[in-house]
């Protein structure tokens, strides 16, 4: 279902968590709210889910065109997955997933057999077959995460809201789950919003990335748009590694990503800048060079392939020439 948020404001005491957020999310999208801590991304997610509310009269939330701003969470059918899962510790996996169906009023509550079938189907969907009698404490982090997801899906949500879904998991599980969630979303097609502070995660997973900073939206766009055409210095610095460079004889600053710095031999006539290799880190297929500019003494990072590095035979202390390859942007 489509979601729109209009001019949303939220203050906690004197802290302005959201300062006029307007956002349009089309149906079936997988959207990342990306930003540093304190940027307001979780507050925005909670307001969409009805777990928090905007300042009185300050903005609206619409789900599929219906104004739900003042509706409580219970009537929004927004499946929420919490950062630390918030599973009901005293209930089994089965009871956790069944919860949303069990609490329905008698008139709309499905029959026990129907609930059972639905829960088992969902557990199959999140690949937890056979674990229905376990308690949450008997599961791994990744499994708990998937129980939380199954529990949220049980209410047949109009929208799925995930707060730092992979934040509490170790790097390996995280990567697997990320891939799994992507294909899962493609399969189900439920409009999904997830909050993350990990740019890699946002870029890899989302259809649309919403970059937030200090309670405001800095940029909305596809991963490629926000990465290649950052709308502000903040987005530039937040999305991926970046160097700030001043070209000789020009006053303005350039933002250059490490992979956009071409390393040349010191005597190369096409070199725009000259630097010294201060540190060299080569593990895996690519190498990262930390370079110290000869004139300004500023440092700059550059990426190159291991093959290039080996061909040039560079080592720490060598002098090199640099050329900035800014691709299709100015």
């Amino acid at each position, binding site marked *: 279902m489509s979601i729109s948020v209009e001019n949303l404001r939220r203050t906690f005491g004197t802290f302005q968590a959201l300062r006029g957020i307007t956002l349009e999310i089309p149906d079936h999208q997988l959207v990342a709210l990306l930003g540093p801590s304190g940027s307001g991304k979780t507050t925005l997610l909670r307001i969409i889910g009805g*777990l928090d509310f905007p300042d009185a009269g300050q903005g609206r939330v619409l789900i599929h065109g219906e104004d739900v701003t003042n509706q409580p*969470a219970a009537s929004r059918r*927004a499946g929420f997955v919490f950062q630390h899962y918030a599973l*009901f510790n005293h209930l089994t996996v089965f009871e956790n997933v069944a919860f949303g169906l069990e609490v*329905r009023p008698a008139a709309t509550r499905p029959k026990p057999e129907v609930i059972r079938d639905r829960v088992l189907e969902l557990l199959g969907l999140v690949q937890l077959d056979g674990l229905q009698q376990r308690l*949450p404490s008997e599961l791994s982090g990744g499994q708990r995460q998937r129980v939380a997801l199954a*529990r949220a899906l049980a209410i047949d949500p109009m929208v799925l809201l995930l707060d730092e879904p992979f934040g509490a998991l170790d790097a390996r599980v995280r990567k697997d789950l990320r891939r799994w969630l992507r294909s899962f979303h493609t399969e189900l097609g439920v409009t999904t919003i997830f909050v993350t502070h990990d740019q890699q995660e946002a870029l890899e997973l989302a259809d649309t990335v919403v970059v937030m900073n200090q309670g405001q939206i800095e940029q909305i766009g596809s991963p490629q748009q926000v990465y290649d055409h950052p709308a502000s210095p903040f987005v530039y610095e937040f999305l991926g590694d970046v160097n700030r460079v001043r070209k000789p004889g020009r006053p303005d600053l350039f933002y250059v990503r490490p992979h956009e710095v071409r390393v040349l031999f010191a005597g190369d006539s096409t070199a725009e800048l000259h630097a010294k290799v201060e540190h060299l880190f080569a593990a895996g297929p690519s190498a990262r060079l930390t370079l110290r500019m000869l004139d300004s003494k500023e440092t700059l990072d550059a990426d190159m392939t291991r093959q290039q590095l080996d061909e040039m035979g560079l080592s720490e202390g060598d002098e090199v020439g640099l050329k900035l390859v800014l691709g299709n942007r100015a």
Partner: protein
Amino acid sequence: MSAQSRATADPRWVRVLLIGATLAFLGLFLFVPLVSVFVEAFRKGVVVYAKAITEENARSAIFLTLSVAALAVPLNAVFGVAAAWAIAKFSFKGKSLLLALIDLPFAVSPVVSGLVYVLLYGARGLFGDWLLEHDLQIIFAVPGMVLATVFVTFPFVARELIPLMQAQGNDQEYAALSLGASGWQTFRRVTLPNIKWALFYGIILCNARAMGEFGAVSVVSGHIRGQTNTLPLHVEVLYNEYNMAAAFACASILSVLGLVTLLLKTLIEWRAGLRRRTH
């Protein structure tokens, strides 16, 4: 002993000395008095003991003690859960004032709490005339004793729950709400199971204090034998009459009550600990 605990352990003589001193202290100040209560109670034989605790005034005192506790404890369980819920799960102005107020009964002497009730509800108290007009007696009657007991035992349940509920946070409640549960369903299906053991624990401590309370109840009761004497007050009356065997016999009932409380408390801690480990 693992290498680490050996590294932090004190020399043998220090341990023996400390443990010995602790045991001697506990024995002298806790165990010997407790045993002596029972020894004194049975000094003149089982028949005298049995008579002392089944005699009319004693039975009335036991019944009154149980009645007061039966009213005060459920009230405080409800108030305690409500207060802990408000403090742990919401932020509002005056929250620290409320916290301080909950602790007030711990801070003031029970005698003072009793006196306050006399000043408010006594014949010459603030509401005295109104109560007289409507033929309601609170002071020197059971209602006053329940009120005084509620006041003195108020913090037990709330104090037990607040730290636990604060540590648990609101996420599970929010999860329940987002799944469509009503406020009451959330409380009954999520909050209550999570605080179950702490709640039992608080209730048991509250009950022990309610049955053993002397000071506040003494001020408001008026010591009418067979009518407004609870067990602790009855013990005092007997003691003042130099009826030692009967005084100790009744005291032994209170002691058994205390031991049962201790047993229940240990059981609950064991159960709760077990749950924590297996979960």
